[in-house]
């Protein structure tokens, strides 16, 4: 499975087979972001992982239990089930549902710019192990 990594952020392109589930979560469960172009912000420095150029929109799923009703499939789809279908395990912290309608570049003051082609993505911060659970990597 293809992935993009930008510092501690991981972006996974969503395959066509999961686009309906992604769309349902995006529309029904996704929470509006202060700025949909900023997918993460440094805890101390405030440095942003920011999409520049292109056409971009995003919502965020803050809770692992975030759920939506399937519009083109029966039953419900959750953040957990979407990640599982992508082969991703438990993620600590928010998961951003990113819609790149026109190719953009992901920028951060300390990292090289990363071109992001048009498509749908799930984006999240890397995790880290601690005895009891995985926690989000913070920089």
């Amino acid at each position, binding site marked *: 499975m293809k*992935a993009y990594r*930008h510092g501690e952020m991981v972006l*996974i392109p969503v395959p066509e087979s999961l686009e309906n589930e992604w769309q349902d979560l995006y529309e029904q469960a996704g929470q509006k972001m202060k700025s949909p172009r900023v997918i993460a912000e440094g805890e101390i*420095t405030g440095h942003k992982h920011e999409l520049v150029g292109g056409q971009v929109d995003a919502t965020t799923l803050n809770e692992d239990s975030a759920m939506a009703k399937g519009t083109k499939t029966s039953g419900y789809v959750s953040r957990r089930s979407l990640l599982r279908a992508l082969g991703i395990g438990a993620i600590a912290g928010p998961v951003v549902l990113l819609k790149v309608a026109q190719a953009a570049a992901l920028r951060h*003051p300390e*990292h090289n710019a*990363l071109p992001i082609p048009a498509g749908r993505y799930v984006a999240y911060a890397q995790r*880290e192990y*601690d005895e009891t659970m995985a926690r989000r*990597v913070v920089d």
Partner: protein
Amino acid sequence: MHNGSTMRLWPEGWLTDHGTEGEAFLSGKANIMELLTLKGGWGRNRRFEIKDGHVRINRNGQDPETSLTIKDGQIVEIQDIEHPAQNRSARIVTTKAWDESKRMKTDAVRTIQRYDTYSNLPSEGAFYEVAGLRIGKHKGVLLQIAKRARFIREEFVYDNGQQAYAWTPYRKGFRVYRPNGKPWMQVTAKVRRPWKRAQNLLQKVQATLASIAGDEYRWSDEPDYEIGLFDEQGRQYGYGKIENHQRVGVWRQGKVKHYFMMGLPVSKELFYAGPDELDPREVLKTENTQLRAALMKKIGPERLLKKLPFTACDADGENQLLKADVSKIFTLNDEAMEQVRATNRLDEQIAIAVLKCPSTGQLYYLRVPPRLNKVEHARQWLCGIDIEGVEEEYIRDRWMMPADAGQRELSPSEQEAMKNEIARSKQQEKLEFVTEA
């Protein structure tokens, strides 16, 4: 058709600034210029065709604020004047250029844009000119200059004729001079292209002169460079250094000092703490990975291995997977040890992946499950892949563990279940990083 005449298109006071009540829409169409109001009010959807001439757009029914020069149906010059507010304290105006709006504190600003046709730059000379801007207290004119219809230079010239700075695409280093010709600021790297961001470079100069360690510290895409500020006598009074795209060392401006480690602002005490004063156990517990990496850099990998009994169980270039017994690293009471036993089923080890960032070249120390055996597996796990369920070696280990403990072989049904799990795991994909930065 109105040729060569000056005309008023709207009644006084109708068109207010940037579309709060109405908006002018300009488009070139087959050698004919059209002006079209988009929103309600008098003149809605009325079109005025102008082949040659001048159009003045009055916004508040007072002075002409935008003036268009049209030649053969194409706009060749746009002149905007932003007037200062009557109240001095409210002299913050918004200037708009190239789809970017910037708020700045200033007097009246006059902006002139020139084109050969509506979309092309003139073959020679200033195509964008802003008067009324300042560096410090000194007024001047910002110019963007074209040659052979290409942008080649940006300049700021004080009202006394002294050039403050000149930016060109290939110049290594960037200098700002005072109105008396003495240096004021220096950046030792190729500065980012200000094209399409007119006034952005000037705002950066203003911000850096006001506070060298402020948010506008990043001047270049090069990994390493320095910024210096100089006083009237040419003595350096401000300094900052960028290494691997990150602020490092002491950034000073006069008597004010800021301390940076791997881009992080830290206290003076932490900055000057010697490697032997830092306890690697405490550092490993630091939640912020950037700060942990910065402190670990200070301790150094050799001293870390000397102080704590870590052994490298896999390496891939500079990336390593380190492991050590938890009991030898942390002093744990029985209850805590029980908890570790309960969660780490295989052993009581601590595992740390040391990974190099492809952009900054810095090493990061990240904890991973102690069951992992390879650097690549640690990378996959950190990025969200539960590698223990994907790689055959971990599935076998898990099935064999109770059998090994009891010194017995797996029953046929257990063997079958293990085989099925391995077969299922083959269908699961690992991450393949297209690009990393």
